[in-house]
C-alpha cells in the first residue's frame, strides 16, 4: 500500500516536472483556425524537449482533449492532466477530443521526425531519416547538417547524406546543386523524379543540367529494375494465394474426382475459424494475441476436416462413380453452408486483423516494399505444398489414397477399406482448404461470400495444371500469378483478367490434358 502511494506520488511529480509548455503556444490547438494549429505544432516541435515529444505523441494518438474554454488535457484512465501545468485531477466538464486531420497529422509527423533525428535510439533515428527522405526541403538543411555532424552510425549517415543532397537540390548555389545531383546518382527515391526532370530541362546551369540528366537516367533504370523485381514478387505472391486456395481442391477434385462446388465454403469456414480464434484470444489471452494464428492453423485444419468428413459421410459417399452428380449435391451444400454462416455471423464481413509481426514490410532495392504478410503466405504455401506432397507420395496413406481413387473396387479386394480412405482423403482435402482459408483471412474479406470469389480461380488452377497432378497445380498457379502481374500494368486489371482467361482457353488447346498431362496408355 505504502509502495503504491509512493509510486503515485512519483508519477504526480513526474507530471509536474513536465509542466513547461507555454499555454499561449498551446492555445491555438484547441481552436478552429487550421493554419494557426499547424503553426502551433511547428512551434511545439521546435521546442525539442521531452515534453514536446510527449505532447506530439499524445496528439497523434488522440489522447489530448480540450475544454470549451481552450485548456488542453491528457486523458488517461478517467484522469485528466493539464498539459500546460501538469496538474492531474478529475475530468473537467465538456471535455472533447482535439480533432486532428490529415494535414495536422502530417505536420505532427514532420515535427516529430525532426525531433527524432536526435533520439538516442538508433531505430527511431533511422525511421525519422527515412521519413525525411520523402520530402526534404531547403529549410530543413541546417537541421540535417546538425544531425550529420552528430551521427555516428554509418548507415544513417549515408542516408542523411542523401537527405542533405535532396534538400540541397533547391539550393540557389549552382555548385551545391550540382554536387547534390551528383550525390544522388545512387538514389532510388522515385520522388526525386519530378525535381530532376525540371532540372534537366530548365536549370540555369549547364553543368547541373548534364548532371541531372545523368542522375535521372540512373534513377530511371534503377526504378525499372525495381519494377521488374516487384512484378516477379507480386506474381509469386498471387500464385501462393491461388495455390493455397486451390490445393484442397487439387485433392478433393483432382484426386477424388468430386466436382466440389463447396470448396470455396470450406475456405470460408477456415477463415471464420481464424476469426473465432482471434476472438477467443482477445477474450481470454489478450497478451498472446500476436500468436493467435498459431492456434488458428490447427483449429482451422481440424474444423474444416471435420466438416469435410461429415459431408463425405452424409452426402458424397453416395456419389462415387457419379462425378457429375457431385456438382449438384455440393452446390446444394455450398448454398447451405453460406446461409448457415450468414445466419450465425451475419451477412456482413467480420474483422480479422493481421498480427503486428505480419504488418508492414521490408524495403528492398530502395523503394520496393515486400510485405511481411505476403512473404509469410508464400512461405506457408510452400510448406503446405511440401506437406501434401509428402503425404501423398511418401506415406502408405498416400499410396492407398491414390489406389482407391484409381480403382475403388480393386483397392477393396487387396484389403484397403475404401470407405475409410475416402473419408480421410476428403477430410484431408477439406482440412487443406481450411488452411487456405486462414491465409486468405489475412489478405481480404472474411464474409459469407469469401469462397465464391475463389472457386472459379481454384478450378482453373487445378485443371490447367492437369487434374490429379500436384506439380501441375503448383506450376499453373505460378504461371497464372506471374502472367497476371506482368499483364496488369500494361493492360489494366480487367483486360489482364480477360487476357488470362483467353490464354487458358488457348493453352488447353495445346495441352488438352493440362500442363502435366498424363501420357501413355494409362491416360485413357
Amino acid at each position, binding site marked *: 500500500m505504502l509502495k503504491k502511494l509512493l509510486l503515485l506520488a512519483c508519477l504526480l511529480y513526474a507530471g509536474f516536472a513536465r509542466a513547461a509548455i507555454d499555454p499561449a503556444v498551446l492555445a491555438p490547438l484547441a481552436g478552429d483556425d487550421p493554419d494557426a494549429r499547424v503553426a502551433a505544432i511547428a512551434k511545439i516541435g521546435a521546442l525539442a524537449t521531452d515534453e514536446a515529444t510527449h505532447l506530439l505523441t499524445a496528439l497523434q494518438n488522440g489522447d489530448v482533449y480540450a475544454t470549451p474554454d481552450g485548456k488542453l488535457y491528457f486523458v488517461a484512465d478517467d484522469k485528466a492532466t493539464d498539459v500546460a501545468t501538469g496538474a492531474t485531477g478529475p475530468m473537467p466538464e465538456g471535455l472533447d477530443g482535439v480533432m486532428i486531420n490529415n494535414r495536422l497529422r502530417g505536420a505532427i509527423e514532420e515535427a516529430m521526425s525532426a525531433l527524432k533525428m536526435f533520439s538516442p535510439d538508433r531505430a527511431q533515428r533511422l525511421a525519422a531519416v527515412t521519413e525525411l527522405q520523402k520530402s526534404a526541403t531547403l529549410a530543413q538543411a541546417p537541421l540535417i547538417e546538425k544531425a550529420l555532424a552528430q551521427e555516428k552510425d554509418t548507415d544513417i549517415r549515408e542516408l542523411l547524406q542523401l537527405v542533405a543532397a535532396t534538400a540541397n537540390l533547391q539550393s540557389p548555389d549552382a555548385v551545391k546543386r550540382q554536387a547534390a545531383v551528383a550525390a544522388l546518382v545512387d538514389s532510388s527515391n522515385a520522388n526525386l523524379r519530378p525535381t530532376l526532370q525540371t532540372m534537366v530541362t530548365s536549370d540555369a546551369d549547364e553543368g547541373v543540367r548534364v548532371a541531372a540528366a545523368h542522375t535521372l537516367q540512373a534513377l530511371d533504370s534503377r526504378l525499372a529494375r525495381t519494377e521488374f523485381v516487384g512484378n516477379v514478387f507480386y506474381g509469386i505472391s498471387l500464385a501462393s494465394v491461388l495455390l493455397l486456395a486451390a490445393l484442397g481442391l487439387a485433392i478433393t477434385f483432382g484426386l477424388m474426382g468430386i466436382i466440389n462446388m463447396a470448396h470455396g465454403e470450406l475456405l470460408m469456414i477456415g477463415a471464420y475459424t481464424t476469426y473465432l480464434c482471434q476472438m477467443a484470444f482477445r477474450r481470454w489471452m489478450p497478451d498472446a494475441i500476436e500468436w493467435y494464428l498459431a492456434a488458428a492453423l490447427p483449429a482451422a485444419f481440424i474444423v474444416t476436416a471435420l466438416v469435410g468428413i461429415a459431408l463425405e459421410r452424409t452426402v458424397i459417399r453416395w456419389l462415387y462413380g457419379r462425378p457429375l452428380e457431385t456438382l449438384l449435391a455440393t452446390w446444394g451444400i455450398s448454398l447451405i453452408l453460406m446461409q448457415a454462416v450468414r445466419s450465425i455471423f451475419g451477412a456482413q464481413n467480420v474483422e480479422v486483423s493481421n498480427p503486428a509481426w505480419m504488418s508492414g514490410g521490408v524495403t528492398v532495392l530502395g523503394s520496393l516494399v515486400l510485405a511481411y504478410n505476403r512473404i509469410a503466405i508464400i512461405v506457408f504455401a510452400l510448406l503446405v505444398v511440401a506437406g501434401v506432397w509428402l503425404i501423398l507420395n511418401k506415406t502408405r496413406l498416400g499410396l492407398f489414397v491414390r489406389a482407391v481413387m484409381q480403382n475403388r*473396387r480393386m483397392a*477393396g479386394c*487387396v484389403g484397403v477399406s475404401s470407405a475409410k480412405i475416402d473419408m480421410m482423403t476428403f477430410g484431408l482435402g477439406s482440412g487443406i482448404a481450411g488452411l487456405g482459408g486462414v491465409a486468405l483471412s489475412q489478405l481480404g474479406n472474411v464474409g459469407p461470400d469469401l469462397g465464391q470469389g475463389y472457386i472459379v480461380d481454384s478450378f482453373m488452377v487445378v485443371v490447367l495444371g492437369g487434374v490429379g497432378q500436384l506439380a501441375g497445380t503448383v506450376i499453373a498457379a505460378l504461371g497464372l500469378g506471374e502472367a497476371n502481374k506482368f499483364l496488369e500494368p500494361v493492360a489494366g486489371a480487367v483486360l489482364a483478367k480477360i487476357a488470362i482467361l483467353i490464354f487458358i482457353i488457348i493453352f488447353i488447346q495445346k495441352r488438352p490434358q493440362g500442363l502435366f498431362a498424363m501420357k501413355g496408355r494409362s491416360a485413357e
Partner: protein
Amino acid sequence: MLQVEKINQYYGSSHTLRGVSLELEKGKCMALLGRNGVGKTTLLKCLMGVLPVSAGSVKLEGRDITKLAPHQRARAGIAYVPQGREIFARLTVEENLLMGLATHSGKKAHTIKGEVYELFPVLKEMLHRRGGDLSGGQQQQLAIARALLAEPKLIILDEPTEGIQPSIIKDIGNVIRLLRQRGDMAILLCEQYFDFAQELADQFVVLSRGEVVASGAQAAMNDPDVKRHLAV
C-alpha cells in the same frame, strides 16, 4: 477352408447363380470350368464380396464371411486375381506390388519378396513404369504377383493365363503346383485353358447357366459328360 453353400445371385431380375455350393480344402486346387457367360466370374466376385449374394452363405475356415466387405475378406485371407487384370493404372509397378501388401503391417508391408521377380522377371525391369503402360500380358503377370504377395489362405484366380505367353504360363503352372505342394493355401482356379486346369487341379466344378452341373476329382475331368458341358 472354403465352404460355399447354395448361393444365389441376381443381376436385377436375371438369376445368374442358382444355388451354387462347393467346398475346397487347404492345400488343394479346384478348377472352375464352364462356357462363356455361365457365371464363373460372377461366382468369384461373390466369393470376394464384390457382388452381394441374395441367399446362401460363404465360410472361410468355418467363419461366416457372407456379409463382409471385400477389404474385410482380403484381411481374412483371400486374394483375388480378377478377370481384366484391374491394375492400378497410374501407380508404378512397384506401387502396385506394394498394394498387394496392403493387408500386412510393419516391415512386412514394405518388402516385396524377391520370389515374384524370379517368377516374373519383367516386373523387375519395369519397376518404375506405370502399371497402365504395361502390355496386356505384363499386366496379367503383375496382377498375379500382387495377389501372391498377400500370402493369402485362399487365392482366387479368374483366367490367370489370359494373354500370357506360353513360357510364362508354364511358370505360373509351376508356381501353382508349388503352392499346392506347400499345402497352406487353397486355390480356386477359373480357367478356360482346359489342359492347364486339368494338369493343376485336384478337383473341379463345372458351371452351366449358373448351376453346378458336374463336379468331382481331377480324374473325372475327361468324362464325356463333363466335356459336353463345355462344348458349344
